[in-house]
């Protein structure tokens, strides 16, 4: 059996497969089908300092190429997550990555400050696609200087390794990644959903405005992973349109140390365990003793 385990930020993960933030509830919801202990790490739903109600419906819409969501970051807040749900991961000895967001830089800082280091917390993952209310709602991740500042300031208040999850809606993603790196980021998650809109042709209005996810994201995210993992010396976690183990392997070959599965879980709730098994089988069949042997082999 090929060895799927890997080291990330000095900690050992049993495999490189994670869920993308917000696509596996608070973790317990998938229990009737399979357990979170199967994951390399569980990525939390995006958490904020205070509970957040989220958006009115419709929150989801199907397109042929995937789906658009506008959940609006509904969550119970950091405090309640650690009171009510973290014990579940402790009991299952499952490592977690805490995804968090804010609407001001101060909120990001306060969130990061609130989360105390723990052996099961692999990293914090900051969602940089959030609207910055102090800058007219433009997302934090859009300008290199904003990214530099926020990463620098969050890094100052936490000892936990920090990942930045970048938005694809930028002129030059390598430049954004470079800014995060210069500010001291420990790793990058590539990519978030692509901002999109659906027009209801019957009602002649905007049906939903949100983030597009699903298979069409794969080549876009692969390009970002390939370019950035080549040039910036921090671990990259690849995500976007991964539907099966061969998609996951493409990301690993492109240079991702780990991958996140999101929308595919809605299509087939067993996608994640299937991908884990599929990668393991692939290593066996192709004679790779360990997962690290294929990471970045497409760099040439």
């Amino acid at each position, binding site marked *: 059996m090929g060895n799927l385990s890997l080291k990330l930020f000095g900690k050992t993960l049993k495999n490189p497969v994670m869920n993308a933030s917000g696509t596996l*509830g608070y973790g317990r919801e*998938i229990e009737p089908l399979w357990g979170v202990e199967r994951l390399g790490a569980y990525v939390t739903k995006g958490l904020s300092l205070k509970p957040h109600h989220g958006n009115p*419906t419709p929150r989801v819409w*199907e397109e042929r190429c995937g789906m658009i969501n506008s959940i609006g970051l509904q969550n119970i807040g950091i405090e309640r997550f650690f009171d009510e749900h973290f014990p579940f991961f402790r009991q299952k000895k499952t490592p977690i990555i805490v995804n968090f967001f804010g609407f001001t830089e101060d909120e990001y800082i306060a969130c990061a400050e609130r989360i105390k280091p723990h052996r099961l917390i692999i990293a914090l993952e900051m969602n940089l696609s959030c609207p910055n209310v102090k800058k007219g709602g433009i997302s934090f991740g859009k300008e290199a200087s904003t990214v530099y500042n926020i990463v620098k300031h969050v890094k100052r208040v936490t000892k936990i390794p920090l990942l930045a999850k970048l938005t694809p809606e930028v002129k030059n993603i390598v430049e954004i990644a470079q800014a995060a790196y210069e500010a001291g980021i420990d790793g990058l998650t590539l990519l978030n959903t692509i901002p999109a809109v659906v027009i209801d042709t019957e009602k002649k209005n905007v049906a939903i405005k949100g983030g597009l996810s699903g298979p069409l994201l794969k080549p876009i995210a692969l390009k970002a992973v390939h370019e950035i993992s080549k040039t910036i010396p921090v671990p990259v976690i690849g995500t976007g349109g991964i539907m099966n183990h061969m998609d996951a392997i493409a990301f690993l070959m492109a240079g991702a140390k780990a991958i996140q599965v999101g929308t595919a879980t*809605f299509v087939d709730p067993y996608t994640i365990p299937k991908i884990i098994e599929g990668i393991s089988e692939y290593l066996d069949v192709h004679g790779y003793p360990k997962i690290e042997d294929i990471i970045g082999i497409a760099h040439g």
Partner: protein
Amino acid sequence: MDDIEGKIVRNDNIVSNYYLLKMKLSKPMGIVKPGQFVMLKIPDNEVFLRRPFSIYACSRDLLTIMYRVVGRGTAYLSKIKKKENTFVLGPLGNGFHLKEKGNHVIVAGGIGIAGVHSLIGKLRGKASVFYGCSGRDEVALVGDIANLDPRISTIDGSYGFKGNVVALLAKHLKSIRRNNVEIFACGPENMLKSLKKLINKDKIPCQVLVEERMACGLGLCFGCVRKTVDEKEPYKRACREGPVFNLWEICL
């Protein structure tokens, strides 16, 4: 609950754009409560996400759903032929909460009959059933419930009471024994709104089965929420905290 493979044994047009789909499952679904639903994989590459459908009937390895063609997913589903294989995830969500004793009143409108059909079956004639549809043709949707003598209304007056089902219920409400009465409803949003208005004064206990656009059906994505009166956490997942809600706790 599990993701179960099934073979379509029947996918028939009943009337206008209403269909009945029956599947033979590769293994029994287990205990199904009235009001629960499944996420059905529509076997066509043009349809990406699964679709939620109330369990119309389920016995051992036979699962039946009733659906109305309303969009892309159901349009493709209506074209699926017999013998095709697909997957159903279920049973999902909380069903209706039934007390041992009670005076059960079931109110359904249009395709809402699909949501309460198994409840009516479970109560075997011990419930008063009110069903509203647009016209005489659609009365066929009551199917095997017909012998339970449901009260029927049609919008065009071509069969039974002329008007909507809430107006029909209003006519009979006085004659329904008030002790232990509980209403179970499923139907269009407007039906639920007027039902709420009708029973608002007496605040009759009422459970409603709601419909929402869904992505996962498991509570993973928070896409299918309903706004409730809970100020701390207003949005509840239809797939997990629902799809049956207390009428007096949701915002309509």
